């Protein structure tokens, strides 16, 4: 017998050590130097599979049913080579989709369904709670055994229902483990839900339990006996033990082996804690390669001594005073080996705590993320959506979940313990998580699988599981009528939980597994065919099923990129340091000396570097995006449809990003188009400017030529007659006036174009303006014998909003135009004002030669004038009409000409009553395309 205090002290020292390991692991992880980034740690952490059930229960199972305890290890061993396909795919998908639990995984695959996530969580909790209870039972029983042995009276009572609640060791074990799990798994929140410290501790525990078990095995085999031969031959002397060592070759035995191996194959994949260590906590999928052979090796090592210990136990305790589950501990105690006994106790403790910590952490993550948070977020009253900081709340939920899960386990332990061996409870849990198999395996390899199929298959399988496996155990524990397990409910034999529809003669686990999976798979497949996947499901199905590329993309890059570009790209996404480190790793692998300051110059800009860059980026932004991003700096070929689909499918978020990207690209294209248009317009403007300058200089040159010529003539010919001199001087003066006018108008136009929006808006009476303009021209017209009539309705002021001076300029320009072209002998000009509700129209009509139809269109363009028809000596600049048009368009009015050749021309314009500011608001001059206006035959003004 060991002192209880000693055991407690040893336990606490051990747990303290464990915590130190975890703490160290976390610190290293924070410092970016992960200790678990190592395939051996990964393989050891996978051994969380071996729990107290393995440590104590295997011997118990071997003692009662012989070799079939091996099935639990046979399954994973047989399956291990396939991990490279299945688990790697799960890892790949989970990393890309940031999946943090098995519930998340299934929910994500079937369209990110919260309902499915919740269902998986419930199944997982229901399935795993008994399993955790089993660990509690193991710890408390082993503690009782270690501290009371060989007091058999205490043993039979150990953990029994007779123990008062508060005296129950298991309660304190549960609470202690809850505390530890909170410390290990929920100390802080991490977006990736990775717990490096916890994994380090678990790996350490795997080592401890293996060493402890090997130690006791070696002691029993070579200490108590003289090796395997001696032990087996002594056991063979007893008939009952001989049966344990042999396999009866019968169909039912093989069937049982097959079923149990199959069950453990599913369990190793889908137990939440296995998912946690193998997938969520995986640092590098290459570690899986070592895990594939190291983990089965671990299983073999931990099983070598199971049968010898069981046989020795049977021989040492033939009367059944010691439970077979406790042989591992009882043998060293019986042999008075206290140190070994403590080691064994610690080994069992480590097996149990590792399982409890990882499983509870995984369950708590699921309960929090897939059960509680969705409900809370949907509960509008809580207004969680509006809160920016949910960390505290999340952590609280996470920690509460841990405590609740462990208390549930304790309650389960109190209810049914004593009725089942460790192994049976474990198998029931296995059968529960096996219900995830159709949804996950189907989800990974069958795109057609739908949400409805997964959900209903899971729920139905779970119900059948509950009915055939835990329900009978409740009945046996007295929680349900006992007749339920003896005759079936209400005596209906065909519903007997261990012989549904007459399927008799199977072990309860094989029976339950068969029916639950049959129903599950049936509904999954059937409903998947019956229902249509939604768009999200469809894209998620692609993301999952096509997660492993058929071939490496290394060869895709045919183009070239510069190292500098790749480097900048990496820095942008990963930060400068990580980019340098990433490139350094590549350089080292290429045999480049990175101690040289110029090592980057030696990097080859080849496909391998691009592939490497892509891989570096994949960690940060996912593989499809990485491919695109790297592609952006590579002068490579455009994406093909398949690749585009890959990008779209990668995740919903990625789709959103892709859409964003696509939108940006379109915007960019549009901006480019606008830029091109603007450029073309600029070029056009440039050309027009050139034309304008060319025309202006030409127009300047004509009067200059005359002035020069006549000046020279007069200079050279002092003998000119007075009349001739007078005539020539008159020409010079006229030409000079023309020059002045032209320069003024060029300046006017220039001003109009430079300050297009400087229309002063004030009420202007057009009647007054007409009067003023006619007044200004009257002398000139009188001298030429031109009559000008103004026709304005009585009392009509013709008030509009606009710029008085400019509108007057328009009128002056039109009047002088009319004056210039009206009939030589009997010139008549008529100015008419028409008042309408929305605008005022003014017509200026002359009786000149008119304007040809083809000239009407271009009459408002610069320097377009019917020059040959102009009144002699009244040549204009050719800019008057252009200026008038500009001004009217700025007032949002129209200006046009109507003319029948030979019968004069009428220039008309309208000004709106109220001045509306430019409706397009882009600051451009208000120059609506006059060709669009049916009232204006003028062509587009030159801007």
């Amino acid at each position, binding site marked *: 017998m060991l002192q209880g205090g000693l055991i407690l002290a040893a336990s606490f020292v051990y747990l303290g050590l464990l915590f130190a390991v975890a703490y160290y692991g976390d610190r290293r992880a924070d410092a970016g130097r992960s200790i678990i980034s190592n395939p051996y740690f990964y393989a050891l952490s996978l051994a969380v599979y071996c729990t107290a059930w393995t440590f104590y229960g295997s011997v118990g199972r071997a003692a009662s049913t012989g070799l079939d305890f091996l099935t639990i290890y046979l399954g994973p061993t047989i399956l291990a080579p396939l991990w490279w396909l299945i688990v790697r795919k799960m890892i790949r998908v989970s990393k890309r989709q940031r999946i943090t639990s098995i519930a998340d995984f299934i929910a994500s695959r079937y369209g990110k369904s919260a309902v499915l996530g919740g269902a998986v969580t419930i199944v997982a909790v229901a399935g795993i709670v008994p399993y955790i209870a089993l660990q509690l039972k193991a710890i408390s029983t082993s503690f009782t055994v270690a501290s009371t042995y060989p007091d058999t009276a205490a043993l039979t009572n150990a953990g029994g229902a007779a123990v008062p609640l508060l005296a129950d060791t298991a309660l304190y074990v549960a609470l202690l483990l809850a505390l530890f799990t909170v410390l290990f798994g929920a100390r802080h929140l991490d977006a990736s839900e990775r717990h490096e410290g916890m994994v380090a501790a678990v790996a350490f525990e795997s080592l401890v339990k293996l060493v402890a078990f090997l130690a006791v095995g070696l002691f029993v085999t070579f200490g108590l006996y003289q090796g395997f031969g001696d032990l087996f031959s002594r056991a063979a002397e007893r008939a009952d033990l001989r049966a344990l060592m042999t396999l009866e070759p019968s169909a039912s035995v093989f069937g049982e082996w097959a079923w149990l191996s199959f069950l453990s194959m599913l369990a190793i994949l889908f137990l939440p804690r296995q998912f946690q260590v193998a997938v969520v906590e995986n640092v590098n999928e290459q570690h899986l390669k070592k895990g594939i052979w190291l983990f089965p090796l671990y299983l073999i090592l931990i099983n070598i001594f199971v049968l010898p210990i069981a046989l020795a136990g049977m021989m040492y305790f033939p009367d059944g005073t010691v439970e077979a589950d406790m042989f591992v501990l009882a043998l060293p105690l019986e042999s008075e080996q206290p140190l070994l006994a403590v080691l064994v106790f610690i080994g069992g403790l480590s097996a149990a705590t590792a399982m409890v910590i990882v499983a509870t952490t995984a369950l708590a993550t699921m309960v929090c993320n897939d059960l509680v948070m969705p409900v809370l977020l949907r509960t509008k009253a809580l207004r969680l959506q509006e809160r920016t900081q949910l960390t505290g709340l999340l952590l609280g939920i996470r920690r509460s979940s841990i405590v609740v899960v462990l208390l549930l386990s304790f309650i389960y332990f109190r209810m049914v313990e004593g009725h089942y061996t460790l192994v049976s409870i474990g198998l029931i849990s296995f059968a529960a998580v096996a219900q995830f198999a159709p949804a996950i395996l189907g989800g990974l390899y069958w795109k057609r699988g739908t949400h409805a199929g997964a959900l209903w298959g899971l729920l139905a399988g779970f119900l059948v599981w509950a009915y055939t496996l835990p329900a009978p155990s409740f009945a046996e524990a007295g929680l349900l009528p006992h007749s339920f397990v003896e005759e079936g409910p209400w005596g209906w034999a065909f519903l007997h939980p261990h012989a549904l529809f007459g399927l008799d003669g199977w072990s309860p686990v094989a029976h339950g597994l068969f029916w639950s999976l049959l129903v599950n798979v049936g509904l999954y497949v059937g409903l998947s065919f019956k229902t249509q996947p939604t768009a999200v499901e469809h894209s998620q199905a692609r993301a999952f099923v096509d997660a492993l590329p058929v071939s490496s993309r290394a060869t895709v890059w045919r183009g070239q990129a510069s190292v500098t570009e790749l480097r900048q790209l990496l820095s942008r996404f990963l930060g400068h340091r990580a980019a340098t480190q990433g490139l350094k790793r590549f350089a080292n692998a290429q045999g480049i000396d990175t101690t040289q300051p110029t090592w980057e110059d030696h990097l080859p800009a080849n496909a391998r570097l691009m592939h490497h860059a892509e891989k570096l980026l994949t960690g940060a932004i996912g593989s499809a995006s990485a491919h695109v991003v790297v592609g952006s700096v590579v002068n490579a070929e455009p994406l093909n449809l398949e690749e585009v689909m890959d990008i779209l499918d990668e995740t919903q978020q990625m789709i959103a990003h892709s859409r964003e990207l696509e939108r940006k690209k379109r915007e960019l294209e549009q901006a480019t188009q606008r830029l091109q248009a603007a450029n073309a317009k600029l070029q056009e403007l440039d050309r027009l400017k050139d034309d304008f300058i*060319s025309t202006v*200089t030409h127009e300047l*040159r*004509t009067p200059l030529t005359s002035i*020069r*010529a006549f000046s020279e003539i007069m200079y*050279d010919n002092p003998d000119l007659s007075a009349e001739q001199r007078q005539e020539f001087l008159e*020409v010079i003066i006229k030409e000079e006036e023309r020059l002045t006018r032209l320069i003024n108008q060029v300046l006017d136009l220039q001003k109009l174009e430079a300050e297009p929006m400087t229309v002063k808006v004030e009420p202007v009476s057009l009647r007054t303006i007409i009067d003023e303009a006619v007044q200004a021209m009257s002398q000139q017209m009188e001298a030429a014998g031109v009559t000008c009539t103004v026709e304005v309705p009585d009392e009509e002021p013709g008030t509009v909003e606009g710029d008085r001076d400019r509108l007057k300029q328009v009128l002056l320009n039109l009047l002088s135009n009319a004056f210039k072209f009206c009939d030589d002998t009997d010139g008549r000009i008529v100015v008419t004002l028409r008042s309408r509700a929305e605008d005022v129209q003014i017509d200026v009509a002359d009786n000149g030669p008119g304007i040809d139809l083809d000239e009407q269109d271009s009459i408002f363009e610069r320097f377009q004038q019917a020059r*040959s028809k102009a009144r002699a000596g009244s040549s204009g600049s050719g800019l008057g009409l252009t200026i008038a048009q500009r001004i009217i368009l700025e007032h949002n009015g129209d200006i046009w000409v109507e003319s029948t050749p030979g019968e004069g021309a009428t220039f008309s314009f309208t000004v709106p009553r109220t001045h509306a500011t430019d409706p397009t608001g882009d600051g451009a001059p208000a120059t609506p395309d006059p060709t669009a206006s049916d009232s204006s035959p003028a062509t587009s003004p030159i801007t």
Partner: protein
Amino acid sequence: MATHVLIVDDEPSIAMSLEFIMKKQGYETDVVDDGAKALQRIEETRPDVVLLDVMLPSHDGFEVCRRIREREEWDELKVLMITAKGREEDVKKGLAMGADGYVTKPFAIKDVVARVEQLLT
């Protein structure tokens, strides 16, 4: 027989100044203000020299020049283009159409006189 000069320009003041200058040199002058009239007048009066502005209503100066050179019987007719300064392409074009020389506006009287005399010798 006196040398006959045809002046083709639509700017009355320029035509007027050219006419004065040519008359002063003792040439007979004739003035028209567009290309079609110019061709018609050549047909009628067979001038020795045409002072031809480029920018004209109806046919422009180039066109008039081209048509003159199409007529074999007008081979002796000298064509002096009056083009704007700084428009070298106009000069080239005019010469390509068969013009015998050019002066640029604004012109100096002695240049025009010298050019016409040069064509007549």
